[in-house]
């Protein structure tokens, strides 16, 4: 019965998406153009990180001659990566089928792993009725090219053509080529900004984007250091919802409730498991698959109310590291000052999370009249709805005057907040801004304050040096003038160097981090 429900969901996924485009960020041609680029780039980055190689990603977008009913513009988009590639036999399923997200796993990931990319392909197919092309090779295997469509009703891949381009290839790669109807002109700013921010949070990636007007945007990596891959972990007992619990129960191979709990959850030993089962008023040796809906709800309530679980394991998270964050900020924004910190792991609603914050000041940064806040969640930039985000609220409530800044709007200062978690508490399905969870807000505030203290002493040093320099320059101007006047009065010009050597300014302010 439960098995059957899961089955039904899978079959309707493509259809479901088709009917709910707006949910996934495809609600209008501009937004769709941006979302498609973004989804394919994120898949490409994921593929590279699995390969543990610095990503090398190219994105080419051109206007196609093809038109559908003379409506919008059709674009051809090609995204290539040097990631792990695919075994040719896996290609049809990987690209031609919409999966319900892999929710059995608990892992920090960029997005709903793989799903977004397929949605992009599906959108292209819906708007142009044109097939997409996937070319890939893995580990010295053959290079194969697939021309495919997705059967929306049946959620099945349709392979139109399959060609072997080479019998062996030295490198692994994947290249996806697709057509879609969109609007690049208005999406350009967002796409470029997305890539730039991605470059900040992925300083170890090379990315080249050539837009439909032939304008190249190149983001060059400045480091070879790649942060470790996030690890998979079991659910924390307080972090599951009823839906997940029912699915776990319907698929488990365990035979008793106690082993079910110790097998599928972290922080649960057999003693704890027995206590939870007793709290639920259930038989410890009951077969999980035989639980009634009523009993499942009782178990769920017990998991929620049991007070003695250890906090979830945060070691599975993979933040960027302050060094890499600073690196990314420096290379893309070229500030005079940058400071990043990583907060210790913390927990909200049984989900572990780590906050990384940074502040950048001066250099090529300019005041914009707005708060310059860069937000990242699990290493992807968030570009929309900044003013609804928890980080924005925190930025607004910090008394920046105490840190030597007049205001964030009028100073060349940028804030960065990166949150990694097994579950990012997005406030909407659009996944663009993060809910104001007090635990998260607290860590963001502490992180920003640490950076701000560093900035304060930097500014103090800088302003002192500037004052000393200004004073020296004033002395120089006055003694030049005096020297001139004395020459006029005596016929001889006294040198200014000797006297100025007595008012040398202190050495120039040390640039931080360089």
């Amino acid at each position, binding site marked *: 019965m439960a098995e059957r429900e899961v089955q039904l969901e899978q079959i309707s996924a493509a259809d479901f998406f088709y009917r709910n485009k707006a949910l996934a960020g495809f609600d209008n041609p501009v937004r769709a153009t941006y979302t498609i680029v973004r989804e394919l780039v994120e898949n490409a980055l994921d593929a590279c990180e699995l390969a543990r190689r610095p990503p090398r990603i190219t994105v080419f977008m051109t206007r196609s001659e093809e038109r559908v009913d003379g409506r919008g513009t059709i674009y051809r988009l090609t995204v290539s990566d040097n990631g792990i590639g695919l075994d040719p036999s896996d290609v049809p399923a990987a690209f031609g089928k919409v999966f319900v997200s892999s929710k059995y796993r608990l892992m920090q990931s960029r997005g709903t792993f793989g799903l977004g990319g397929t949605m992009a392909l599906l959108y292209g197919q819906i708007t142009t009725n044109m097939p997409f092309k996937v070319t890939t090779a893995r580990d010295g295997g053959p290079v194969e090219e697939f021309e495919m469509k997705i059967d929306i009703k049946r959620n099945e891949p349709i392979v139109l053509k399959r060609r072997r381009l080479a019998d062996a290839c030295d490198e692994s790669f994947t290249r996806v080529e697709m057509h879609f109807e969109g609007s690049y002109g208005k999406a350009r700013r967002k796409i470029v900004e997305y890539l730039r921010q991605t470059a900040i949070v992925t300083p170890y990636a090379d990315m080249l984007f050539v837009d439909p007007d032939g304008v190249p945007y190149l983001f060059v990596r400045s480091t070879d250091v790649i942060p470790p891959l996030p690890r998979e972990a079991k659910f924390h007992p307080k972090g599951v919802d009823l839906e997940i619990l029912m699915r776990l129960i319907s698929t488990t191979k365990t035979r008793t409730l106690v082993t079910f709990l110790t097998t599928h959850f972290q922080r649960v030993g057999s003693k704890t498991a027995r206590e939870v089962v007793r709290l639920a008023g259930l038989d410890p040796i009951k077969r999980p698959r035989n639980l009634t809906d009523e009993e499942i709800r009782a178990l769920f309530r017990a998991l929620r109310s049991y007070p003695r679980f250890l906090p979830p394991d945060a070691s599975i998270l993979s933040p960027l590291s302050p060094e890499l964050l600073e690196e990314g900020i420096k290379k893309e924004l070229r500030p005079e000052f940058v400071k990043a910190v990583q907060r210790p792991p913390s927990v909200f609603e049984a989900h572990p999370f780590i906050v990384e914050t940074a502040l950048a000041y001066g250099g090529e940064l300019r005041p914009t009249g707005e708060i310059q806040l860069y937000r990242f969640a699990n290493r992807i930039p968030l570009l929309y709805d900044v003013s609804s985000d928890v980080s924005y609220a925190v930025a607004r409530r910090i008394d920046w005057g105490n840190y030597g800044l007049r205001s964030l709007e009028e100073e060349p200062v940028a804030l960065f907040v990166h949150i990694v978690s097994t579950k990012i508490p997005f406030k909407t399905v659009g996944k663009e801004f993060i809910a104001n969870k007090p635990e998260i807000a607290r860590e963001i505030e502490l992180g920003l304050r640490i950076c701000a203290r560093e900035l304060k002493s930097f500014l103090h040093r800088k302003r002192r040096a500037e004052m000393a320099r200004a*004073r020296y320059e*004033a*002395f120089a*101007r*006055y*003694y030049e*003038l*005096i*020297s001139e*006047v*004395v020459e*006029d*009065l*005596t016929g*001889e010009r*006294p*040198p*200014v160097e*000797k*006297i100025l*050597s*007595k008012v040398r300014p202190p050495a120039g302010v040390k640039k931080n981090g360089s």
Partner: protein
Amino acid sequence: MAHEEAVEVKKRIREIALKIKRDMEMGRFPKIRYPPNTSGNIEFSEEEGYVFSPRVYSEIRGSRLKSLKTLAGILYGMDKALDHLENGLTMTKRDFYYIHKIERLKGTLFPKDQRETDSRIVLMELVLGLPREAISITSDPRGWIYGDIELTDRSGRTIRADQVGEMGYSVPPRPENIKFGRIGVKAVVAVEKVGPAKNMIELGIPEEHGIAVAILKGQASRSMRRFLRMLSDKGVPVAILTDLSPWSIRIAATVVYNSISSAHIPGLAAPEARFIGITTGDVETGFFSDYRFALEPLTQMDLKAAQDNMRLPNLQHPFWQEENRWFLEKKKKAELEIFKAMSPSARELKGLFVEYLRQKLDENLGIAI
């Protein structure tokens, strides 16, 4: 004559410049020592008025930025003043302000407003120990004298002060060089206001009674005070005739004793000069006692000035204190125009003027007219 003066001024300025040059060559911060015109350096006596007797000295130091600006400022100012002096040009304070409003001085001496350059003029006077007129910075001339006085001024012409127009001789900005010839007057009456003074001239009083009339037009200018002092030194009795008001007794006292702000300029006080009226006695029991209805009320500003007067060093003599207390008590003042209230007709006015002057000159200076 003018040339000799310029040579002396140039010598002093060059000395300062040479000292600064030596300091700079040695890598020493230059400094200039000068006596500030603060109260500690100003003495007062009834006999001499305000006298500048430096005990305390200040330094303008090239080691502190603010002080360095002052140093550059007075050096630049003296250089430009000397340039004017050597070329026979004068300049006003406003001119001095404008010679700082040049591109070259942006970021250094370019002034925010004229107060900045004005205060530097005073500093230059203190540093050089010379009045600003000596370095060609003059005020617009103010003050005239009418009467049988023969003099030769900078223009080289010999002039009789009752034969140069209806206001008489306009006292030049720098009267030091004036050489007096024959002096045919028994006294000079320095009148605060232009109107009554002109009336006296128009009525022929100077000619008929052998006096000169000096027109101050408000507070006596430095040049007028210097000029009166010179006449006083020549033995000419000087009488001062002003309104009876808190401001006017300051005007009178400044002619007699000089003022604090120009105490460092010698030769401006005329201690032999006598204040002849209008006095409180004139109003209470004397000449104007029947015309008290013509008095004016004191304004708030007037009253405030009267209160301040009680503390002025040059108004400490019991006479001035008494006079001033009258303002505080009666809150009234009398103006010289009160003569008009007494005599709407021209014929009577002359009689009144003469009667008043005869009485007062006799009382205060023992002079009969």
